[in-house]
């Protein structure tokens, strides 16, 4: 049984369809990455998932049950932007959690405050964006939740603290927590996530286990002597899902092992050819900007 099941979720704001018929299964104990360009509908999906926004249509279930307030005893949410009370300090926020959640662990909260070097007496108003994110992370993890919904959880954090958050995510997942995560740091998602879905314009355009998504595609990369490469034949090749040229380098995203395409590039004059596994960034870019693109467009994505 899936911990979280989202079936045919749609959410519109007036005429704007923010989430369009999204169906996602998030297995128990998994780290689920929700990726997508800005405005793809990730935050709206999270809000509908947690009942913070009313779905226009669709059903959301947690272990087969509809979301009820009591379920929040074991669910933590870290929103994309700071929602902390500016007039309260760190200690007061933690006290609020302690008084609200039975699962609150004071010792763990103290450890996490130390980990992020947060001063509990400091007012949120005086905190930087990174400190606010860190405090939200501390509040979320201090209740030892079974389900964590993290929307850009490393936003504003320095690399050291980003790594600390990632470790917390991996550690919680190892202890059985289900984690739903969105981030623009694809490398982080790649390190933590075992399942993912890619949203674009409110629709799921790719979903599945990360290993499966990686295994059925390869990158065939060739370096040519000049930037003038005859691509016409390649554009018509059905094995090629995506074609990127960056100067003298040609990268082909191909289905399965791309058999024969390495030889094709060699015959086209490539000085060197190699076949590499896809990383998550390749999968993401391939999903949101499929087909032939220039390197500049790909980098901007």
């Amino acid at each position, binding site marked *: 049984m899936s911990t979280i099941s989202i079936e045919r979720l749609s959410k519109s704001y007036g005429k704007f369809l923010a989430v369009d018929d999204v169906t996602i299964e998030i297995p128990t104990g998994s780290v689920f990455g929700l990726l997508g360009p800005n405005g793809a509908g990730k935050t709206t999906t999270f*809000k509908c998932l*947690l*009942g*913070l*926004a*009313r779905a226009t249509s669709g059903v959301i279930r947690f272990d087969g049950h509809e979301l009820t*307030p*009591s*379920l*929040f*005893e074991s*669910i*933590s*949410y870290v*929103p994309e*932007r*700071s*929602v*902390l*009370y500016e*007039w*309260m300090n760190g200690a*007061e926020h933690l*006290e*609020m959690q302690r*008084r*609200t*959640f039975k699962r609150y662990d004071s010792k763990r909260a103290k450890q996490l405050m130390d980990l992020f070097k947060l001063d509990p007496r400091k007012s949120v108003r005086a905190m930087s964006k990174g400190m606010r994110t860190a405090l939200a992370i501390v509040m979320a993890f201090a209740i030892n939740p079974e389900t964590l919904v993290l929307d850009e959880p490393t936003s504003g954090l320095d690399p050291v603290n980003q790594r600390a958050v990632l470790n917390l995510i991996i550690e919680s997942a190892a202890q059985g927590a289900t984690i739903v995560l969105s981030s623009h740091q694809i490398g982080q998602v790649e390190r933590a996530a075992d399942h993912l879905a890619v949203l674009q314009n409110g629709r799921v355009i790719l979903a599945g286990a990360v290993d499966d998504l990686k295994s059925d595609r390869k990158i065939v990369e060739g370096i040519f002597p000049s930037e003038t490469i005859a691509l016409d034949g390649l554009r018509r090749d059905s094995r090629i899902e995506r074609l990127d040229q960056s100067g003298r380098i040609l990268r082909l995203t191909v289905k399965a092992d791309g058999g024969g395409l390495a030889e094709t590039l060699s015959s086209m004059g490539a000085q060197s050819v190699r076949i590499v596994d896809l990383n998550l960034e390749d999968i993401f870019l391939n999903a949101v900007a499929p087909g032939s693109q220039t390197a500049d467009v790909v980098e901007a994505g």
Partner: protein
Amino acid sequence: MYYYAEVLRGTRASRVIAIILGIFLALAIMFRLWAFAEHSRIHVSGAHAMSPNIPVAVLFAIAEVIGLVTATLLGGVLAKENDGHLEIAWTKPVSRDRLAAATMGVDIVTILLSQFATVLLVLVICAMFVWPSFYSDAATLPSIAITLLGPIAWYACLTAFSASLKRGLGMVVGLGWLAALVVPAVAEGTARSSSDFGRAIHWVFQPIAYIDPIEYVHLSFHGSGGMSAMQNAPLGPLGVSAGILIVLIIVYLALSVLQWRRVEA
């Protein structure tokens, strides 16, 4: 205690009220010391003969002003949550209705405490100068009820008119006070108008005045005879006005919760 944030908010409002009351107390002490030094004849030992008769409800009428200040500070609490904190408020393991009710309950207790603190302060100041003879009559109980209910009704009114807003609470509070004072005055002023325009204005403003809590909190005192009927009370007797305030509180609080249910983060 899922309403801890509101307890903190109430504590902060109480600090503001404590400062205001503290200033009054400091002024009273300074005046008393000055009076003691300059006019020793005002000494308490000689004051008993001059002790005035004051209806006990006057204490609460003074406290009502502070209650209205507290209500204004705390009013629109749900709009404050709407302004960027719903992700915290609505991911607590408690229903929205219960959270809203508890939050508003904390505020109402804070308003009442501020009023009782003011009554205490007035008694302290009385003890410093001249201890009056407090008396009560048939009007006392409904009058005290009005003074206690009025600020709560005003708080509920501000909360109801802002519960679905994410921003603009300050405007609601500012315009709310303006409307609360102007509307009954216009309704009253045009009540006996002979012109069609005046009657039309009255026809528009009078219903609004009926749902304005401030309309019901005016009290007047006649000489030393104590408290009499209310000024500007559109429905007459004190008990009826107290009843209307109770109805307004219930309706406004219910409207607040109903609106808040439908807000989205």
